[in-house]
């Protein structure tokens, strides 16, 4: 996996070949470099010398679960888009087409692992048991971080591209230190009858566009230098708003890892089984202290960048059709049916579950409470801050000085939103 050919000098002319190949690749939809694939678009399960053994561990319930998750998150996506078109959300970031990359990788993580997403990983959120309604708070404009990461080990969305990649490496460096300490105390714990905590790893998501940011480079340098237990999961969905991945890279993104000194592996991002296998391998490896891995999930952003975007302005519908033929759900459905692992009643149940989720999401969105600016005062600092207190006091007086009804509402809203001042207990 990955090019073994290295240019002999910096003036090696193969750069042009790579570019042409990359462009052809985008047009044909077939990667020039080999990528790990187990389930092809027709739903046939193939084999891979390294990763089949992971696939073989998947029992029918798990496989059906993959399908159910992907269907669920797709349905959620459709509903959220509709809500945006109805003015209920300010913006929505759809993940259509990337379900397998997210569900497959997310399901390979373990509860003690910590995940750093970008802002499109609603599928991973689902696998981490984040209440999907909480995701919507950000897009409704009532919060910049709708859930508590400590509950699910799923970090908040980071909107500055790639800024989360060094966070992930730092977190992994923290895990290393914790594990070193735990190892030192391991004998004592075992003798005391305490369960030894399982090792943890970090997984950080970013896209092909973000891969150009300097922070990705710096985090990979750090990760390699310290052999940090972090899996870099790049969803190459081929488009960064309107800029194709061929502008972000001349070579398969997975190949960059070699430059830093750790393995990079490209996987068919629409093949949930392969994604799961590769991710499981990578996370295990990291947990065991063998350092970072870069996974490039080769997939496609079927929808727009966000609901404020219009892909008809920059890409061909023919290309979209090509990728729709490689749909992650379709191929798994074919496989499940062919293997007798799922029938009509299963798929109808899945549909019904999706509708139920959609209704829940719709209702929750409508019921989202409007925040009060007083919480923003309270949350700027952990510890008491004289300027914040002064400005808040001014704001209270100012607000109370209006003669119209709005001031009465604000005053009672203020009462309703008094925030616990003592954060020392946290």
């Amino acid at each position, binding site marked *: 996996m990955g090019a073994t050919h290295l240019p002999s000098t910096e003036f090696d002319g193969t750069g042009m070949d790579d570019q042409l190949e990359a462009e052809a690749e985008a047009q044909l939809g077939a990667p020039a470099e080999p990528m790990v694939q187990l389930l092809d678009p027709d739903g046939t399960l193939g084999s891979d010398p390294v990763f089949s053994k992971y696939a073989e561990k998947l029992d029918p319930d798990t496989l059906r679960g993959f399908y159910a998750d992907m269907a669920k998150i797709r349905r959620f996506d459709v509903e959220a888009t509709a809500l945006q078109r109805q003015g209920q959300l300010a913006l929505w970031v759809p993940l259509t087409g990337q379900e397998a990359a997210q569900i497959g990788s997310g399901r390979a993580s373990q509860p003690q692992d910590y995940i750093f997403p970008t802002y499109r990983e609603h599928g991973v959120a689902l696998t981490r048991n984040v209440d999907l309604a909480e995701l919507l708070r950000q897009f409704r404009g009532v919060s*910049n971080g709708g859930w508590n990461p400590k509950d699910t080990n799923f970090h908040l969305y980071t909107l500055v591209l790639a800024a989360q990649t060094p966070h992930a490496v730092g977190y992994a*460096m923290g895990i290393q230190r914790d594990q070193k300490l735990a190892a030192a105390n391991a004998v004592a714990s075992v003798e005391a009858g305490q369960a030894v905590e399982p090792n943890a790893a970090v997984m950080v998501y970013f896209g092909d566009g973000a891969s150009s940011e300097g*922070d990705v480079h710096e*985090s990979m*340098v750090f990760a390699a230098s310290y052999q940090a237990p972090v899996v870099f999961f790049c969803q190459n969905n081929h488009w960064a708003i309107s800029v194709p991945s061929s502008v972000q890279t001349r070579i398969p993104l997975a190949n960059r890892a070699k430059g830093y000194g750790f393995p990079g592996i490209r996987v068919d991002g629409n093949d949930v089984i392969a994604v799961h296998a590769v991710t499981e391998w990578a996370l295990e490896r990291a947990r065991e202290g063998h350092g970072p891995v870069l996974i490039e999930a080769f997939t496609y952003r079927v929808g727009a960048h966000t609901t404020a975007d219009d892909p008809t302005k920059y890409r061909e519908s023919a290309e979209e059709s090509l990728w729709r033929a490689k749909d992650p759900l379709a191929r798994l459905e074919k496989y499940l049916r062919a293997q007798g692992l799922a029938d009509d009643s299963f798929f109808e149940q899945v549909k019904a579950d999706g509708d139920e989720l959609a209704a829940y999401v719709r209702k929750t969105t409508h019921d989202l409470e409007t925040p009060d600016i007083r919480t923003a005062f309270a949350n700027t600092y952990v510890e008491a801050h004289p300027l914040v207190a002064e400005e808040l006091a001014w704001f209270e007086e100012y607000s109370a000085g209006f003669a119209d009804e709005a001031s009465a509402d604000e005053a009672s809203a203020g009462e309703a939103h008094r925030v616990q001042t003592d954060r020392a207990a946290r």
Partner: protein
Amino acid sequence: MTTMTIAKAINEGLRATLNNNPRSLLMGEDIGALGGVYRVTDGLIAEFGADRVVDTPLAESGIIGTAIGLSLRGYQPVCEIQFDGFVFPGFNQITTQLAKMHSRSNGNLTVPVVIRIPYGGGIGSIEHHSESPEALFAHTAGLRIITPSNPHDAYWMIQQAVDCQDPVIVFEPKRRYWLKGEVDTETPGASADPFKAHVLREGTDATVVVYGPLVPVALAAAEAAAEDGHSVEVIDLRSISPIDFDTVTASVRKTGRLVVAHEAPTFGGIGGEIAARISERAFHSLEAPVIRVGGFHMPYPVAKVEEDYLPDIDRILEALDRALAY
């Protein structure tokens, strides 16, 4: 009480930090084997090991970013940015991530990262080694910024910064690293609160507010002014965000005149914030406009003309003269 230079005081403060906080660690370029380009971290790697005194790759954004990650995992990282002029690759992580993470998470996450930055000029150095960028960070809510002017404060403030649950930037006046002073390593005494300003010298005719490297200069100016019969009060601001406006206001109510001096350029500098706020709070006490002393609106000049650029005793006295003439 021990006599120490500021550099040594910070070194001792870091040592105390590493001893008292098992989850604290230092990270930066050249801080390990070399002990830091100013030897501020000298000897610490030998004492605490490479896991706690980490020589990082040359990547400021990476340093700050990984520190954020470590703090999310429950650690207390103390980053060093080697020189003020090189903090800018890390500006994104500091302003979009470090400052906002607590607020973004609705209070669920804390990122108690400390960033130490040697700052200021007067050392005859090359480009980017003499900057004073504190105003750029003060304008970002979510950060706290402190700056010690003497060894006792240097010893205690670094420890208090680590104990603080908010992200703290500690600006260390590099030209004063070799300034000696008495340090009480048992109790902080008057330096118990890093966010309070200190009245270093009492006076009645005018107040001079300074911080960091200009503190000794202001004291010298006050001494010179006394010879001319003017009683000048000198305040060491110590904390740039938050600013202790109460102490400054009380002083101006007493003296009626205020001069603010900093190495950073006057335009857009901290002096402007102080001038505006004091004029609101103590308008009727003002006998003169607030006069600011600072660098000129130009990139920090070459070493050979640095003297003409930096506020010195004469520049502060000129400002006092103007204020007193009203």
